């Protein structure tokens, strides 16, 4: 008797749902073992993480606050990954979006009618994110430069640019040297609906649905899927792959740029330390766990945000490092990747009789 992997004719529907769920459970178990090694009770830890993230409405609004940027960046990264364009620059695109929105909020408020300040700030954030993502896209399409490294390096450049601004040119003159710009005028504040949870949530959910429709019901969406899955066939069918990549990556960056604009206009109301806290990297986990499906990304984003908020909670209540939540997140992808084999292959047991059948 022998075990072999046989390629499935079509992707297994059951495995698509089962693999992420099982992966999450495996991640809980592995991290649990780790906690036991550090002489901490995993059940108590997980319970307080859950309570911390979902236990009350107030806690849940904090989870939503972190879910919004994860939804947007997750959808954006997922779109890029569909094309096998490894955009790992969502962090920088988010930061650049935040910088552009700050620019509008600080310096355009006097020239714009008040009702236009916020939309302009967000629009500029979107454009900035798109352009920042456009750099690796153009280099990839026209010069075949590896997009993984370029998009990643641009994260550092964006973060250092933001730092240079809030430590330097844009620092609040009345801030007593505190690194940060002055507070935005009220006209540039994105409204909150409960706690710190803001209306960006509804925009993110709406965009998730729109993106699903675009991917599944439009010609462009079809071209994106085709170019990623089978570029040769796409080319034969007359799809301009380069153009598809550039448009898709601009959209991908636009999502992250919007997330950055939301962060500064709704949460901090100024540009300061703490804009780049890893949403752009967690977005990779969100996108992959959601199997690049924008609607699934919305739910996975809430789960991942829950892990982050829960991690903060166990730090406060149990003195465990907040990085706990990040360790849990990091563990999820390993079983996910191992499991992805089962969506494309099936395990077949070969015994003597089946061998004869095959002949």
């Amino acid at each position: 008797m022998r075990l072999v992997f046989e390629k499935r004719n079509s992707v297994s529907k059951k495995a698509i749902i089962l693999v992420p769920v099982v992966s999450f459970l495996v991640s809980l178990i592995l991290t649990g073992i780790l906690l036991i090694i550090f002489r901490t009770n995993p059940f108590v830890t997980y319970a307080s993480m859950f309570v911390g993230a979902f236990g009350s409405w107030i806690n849940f609004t904090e989870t939503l606050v972190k879910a919004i940027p994860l939804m947007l960046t997750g959808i954006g990264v997922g779109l890029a990954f569909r094309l096998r364009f490894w955009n790992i620059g969502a962090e920088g695109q988010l930061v650049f979006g935040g910088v552009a929105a700050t620019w509008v909020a600080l310096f355009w408020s006097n020239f714009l009618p008040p009702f236009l300040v916020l939309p302009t700030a967000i629009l500029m954030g979107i454009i900035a994110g798109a352009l920042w993502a456009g750099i690796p896209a153009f280099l990839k399409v026209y010069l075949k430069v590896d997009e993984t490294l370029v998009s990643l390096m641009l994260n550092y450049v964006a973060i250092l640019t933001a730092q240079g601004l809030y430590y330097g040119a844009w620092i609040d003159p009345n801030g007593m040297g505190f690194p940060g710009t002055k507070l935005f005028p009220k006209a540039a504040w994105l409204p909150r609906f409960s706690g710190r949870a803001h209306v960006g949530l509804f925009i993110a959910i709406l965009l998730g649905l729109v993106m699903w429709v675009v991917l599944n019901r439009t010609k462009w969406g079809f071209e994106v899927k085709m170019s990623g899955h089978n570029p040769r066939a796409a080319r034969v069918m007359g799809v301009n792959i380069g153009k598809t990549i550039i448009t898709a990556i601009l959209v991908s960056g636009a999502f992250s740029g919007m997330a950055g604009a939301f962060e500064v206009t709704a949460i901090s109301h100024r540009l300061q330390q703490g804009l780049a806290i890893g949403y752009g990297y967690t977005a990779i986990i969100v996108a992959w766990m959601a199997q690049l499906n924008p609607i699934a990304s919305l739910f996975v984003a809430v789960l991942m945000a829950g892990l982050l908020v829960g991690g903060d909670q166990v730090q406060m209540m149990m003195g465990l490092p907040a990085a706990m939540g990040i360790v849990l997140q990091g563990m999820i992808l390993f079983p996910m990747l191992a499991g992805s084999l089962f969506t494309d292959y099936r395990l077949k047991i070969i015994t003597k009789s089946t061998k004869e059948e095959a002949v």
Partner: protein
Amino acid sequence: MIALLASILAITLRAGTSLIYATIGEIYTERSGILNLGLEGMMLMGAVSAFATVYYTGSLLLALLVAMLTGIILSSIHAFLSITMRANQVVSGLSITLFGTGFASFLGQRLGPESNGHYLIGLIGNKFTPVKIPFLSDLPVLGALFNQDILTYIVYLIIPAAWFFMYKTRAGLNLRAVGESPQTADAMGINVFKVRYIYTILGGTLVALGGAHLSLSYAPGWTDNITGGRGWIVIALVIFSMWNPSRAIWGALLFGGINAIQFRLQATGTTISAPLLNMLPYIVTIVVLVLMTWVETMNKKVGAPAALAVPYMRGEK
């Protein structure tokens, strides 16, 4: 002037050492056809495990061994996922980096002594110090080459050894064959899976050593994100060196040199803003990458293993 040159050369070598370990490690991994983007995570884990070990035991040798073990474990995960499970190597590597970054930060807040709130940050441990080689270290400028720590001296040996092994031995030939055409290698009787496992793990071990050099010598101690993107820069350096271990030195010296110049400029006080100066390595990486890719498309041959990042399965075309 001579003193300035000597000091720049000294810092360049110190900063370049960790890059060379990691670059040679990744060259070997990629030559077998496996792309490992988990370098940043493995370097961080190497750095934190090495520092924690040296803090409690005082033994630098033990610290290096623990860092190597960490590299072996993490690269084994990547090897298992990408070789046995045929997972997407880009995503698998990214997972190693995401997990390694988070776990290193977790350990940095957990492994420390109770008196320091279990933090490793801010502690001082044993570290590698420069060892002067008599006479040679008195040479003008070049003396800097012979006033380094042991890990840097080992680099002087590793570079030629890695080159010799890859181009002049049977095992090196097999390694290159597996990365170029696993089907042909398999037909020649080479165990493709075994070769890929060996060099993915060997590469990970060297990468983790590079991380250990950071926390034991270059910037002794532990801080979150002590690597500052070096793991990613190394991936560019592999391309820069055209997958040839003997050329790994140039990229490492270039980036070590940038670090050294930053260091000098900041020490002397400069009008160039610090963020702009700090951006330099990342911008140079992009420029180098664009240039190398351009050279590659012009010449059509640079040396990227043909089967890089392509999973191998027996019986599939």
